[in-house]
Structure formats: structure tokens, C-alpha cells
């Protein structure tokens, strides 16, 4: 039973990581194209990009915690 539980938790974490993976890809891709269009705004775009990554990542992190406490 314990092994099944941890295996399901592992699958759940994998599923939970899909969304943030796609989201971080979109954030970083758009940030790169913004920096390429306007290199002089690169500093501001970089800060905002890290913020966006940090917020998008939250769901994957909650999944990570659930994997440990499951």
C-alpha cells in the first residue's frame, strides 16, 4: 500500500509539472523575443521574466511538496 501511494504521488507530481513547464516556456520565449526586439529594455524584461517564472513555478512546487507528504 505504501509503495502504491508513493508511486501515485510521483505520477501526480509529474502531471503537476506539465503546466508550469509549458508556462515557463511561454514566459521565457516571449521574454527572449521582447529582448531581441528591444535590447535596451533587456534589464526590465529580465526582472519581469524572473517574476513570471517564480509565479508560474508555484504549482510545480506545491506538487513537489505533496509528493513528499503523501
Amino acid at each position, binding site marked *: 500500500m505504501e509503495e502504491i501511494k508513493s508511486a501515485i504521488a510521483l505520477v501526480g507530481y509529474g502531471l503537476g509539472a506539465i503546466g508550469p513547464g509549458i508556462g515557463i516556456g511561454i514566459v521565457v520565449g516571449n521574454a527572449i523575443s521582447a529582448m531581441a526586439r528591444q535590447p535596451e529594455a533587456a*534589464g526590465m524584461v529580465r*526582472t519581469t521574466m*524572473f517574476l513570471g517564472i*517564480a509565479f508560474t*513555478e*508555484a504549482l510545480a*512546487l506545491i506538487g513537489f*511538496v505533496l509528493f513528499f507528504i503523501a
Partner: protein
Amino acid sequence: MEQLILASGGCDPANDIICRPDNVIELFEFTDPLFTIGPLHFTRTVILIFLAMFIVLALLFFGLRGRKLIPSKFGVMVESLVSFVRDDIAVSIIGPEGVRYYPWLLSLFMFILVGNLFEITPFINFPITSRMALPGFLSLLTWVIFVFVGFKKNGFGYLGPLVWPKTVPVALRPLVGLIEFVSTFFLRPLTLAVRLFANMVAGHLMLTLLLVSGWVFLSSVGEIGIRSVIGIPWFVFGLGIFVFEIVVAVLQAYIFTLLSAVYVQSSVHPEH
């Protein structure tokens, strides 16, 4: 060396292809006190926390002591760190009044940076931020500060836009308000702490498993013969991760400080 023994305990290079510890928690727990003062037991983790504190104090003290017109090279390095936190994080996120919060942001940044870099410092090799107590406490501090600032600046008007957002259609307001309330007061400190903690745990785990596997396989060449080449990819991969972890350590310290500044900013100007 203690960690190597722990991680290679139960490792059998003749049959396994990677060394795994029986219990991963052993890599992060140092339960034996190294020395004891009265009721306080000083384990390795506690000593490393104090070491990080003294390193930060020494860096700032010796870097900014006797400020001259032309500072030394070391002074320039410390000054650029300080001005990075003040100008690029505090002032550019919070605005002109960010100068008030920058001593706290600077101490957060320096302490987390030193604590993270312990992960890859030879002979220490243990990120103190991979124990949940430390990022948990730091993010609780951030939570206390941004909630306090929010209520002090806006009174109970701080809660208004959060639980009853005026920019949303009326029918949706209770739902959006509930989500906003939970995410501001519960998920913010949780994710702030877990982000740092999870990154450090994952990094430390990868480094330990890969480098210890490489070391165990390559050093037991006399017993297992040609099988010891299995250790070479583990070792190379581990060294690659080692470089990657330097980036992660700096980036996580930066993100923690940046998000703390953003949370304070959202309390100072709640309408944005």
C-alpha cells in the same frame, strides 16, 4: 567524508549501477551534537548557520570599512553587491521609499546567497537552506513585514481590494476575492519558502548521488575491474551539475529577495 560514508552505505558497485542511500533524509539530518552549551545542542547545521552569519557580517564590515574616494578591489565588489540590491531590487520594485526596506532585503540576499553557496563549497558541501526551518523562517519574516506594512499604510482598507476586487464583475467577486485572500496570506509565504527549499534539496541530492557514485565506482577499480568505467559518466555529469548549481544558488537568492520586494510593494501600493 561523513556524507560520502552515509551516501555510499549499502552501495554495492559490483551489482548496482548507481549508489543510492537507504534513506534520503540521512543526507540532510545531522542529529549528533558536535558540542553542547547548557541546554543548547550545536549540530553541524547550527554551526553552519552561525558561520554564514559571520561570513556576511565580515564581508559587509571589511568591504565597507573606511570608505575612501577610491575603494579597494574587494570594496568595489561588496559595494556593487549592495548597490545591486538597493537600486535594482529595492528602489526599482518598491519605488523611492524602497530605500527604507533595503537593509532587510540586503541581509536576506547575502544570507541566502552564502547559505546556498555552502552547497558547492569544498569541505562544507551542505546548503543550510535545504532545511525547511531556515527558508520557512525567512519567508515568515517576509510575511510579517508585508502584512504589517499593508495594515500600517492602508489600515483595514488593505483588505478591501483583496477580498472585494472592484475591477471584477460583481458575480465573480466572492470567488476571486477568496482566491486572492488565500493566495496572498497562505500561498505566498508557502511558495516563497518551498521554492528555495525544493531547489536546494534537489541540487544537493543530485550532486551527492552523482559525485558519490562516481567516486565509489572509480575508487573500487581493484575489486570490480572494468565495471568501474560506469563511474566516469556519473562523475562527468556530476561536475556539470556542479557548475549549474552555482547558477541556481545565485538565482534563488535573487528570486527570494525579488519576490520579498514585490510582496512589500503590493502592500505599499495595493491598487497596482
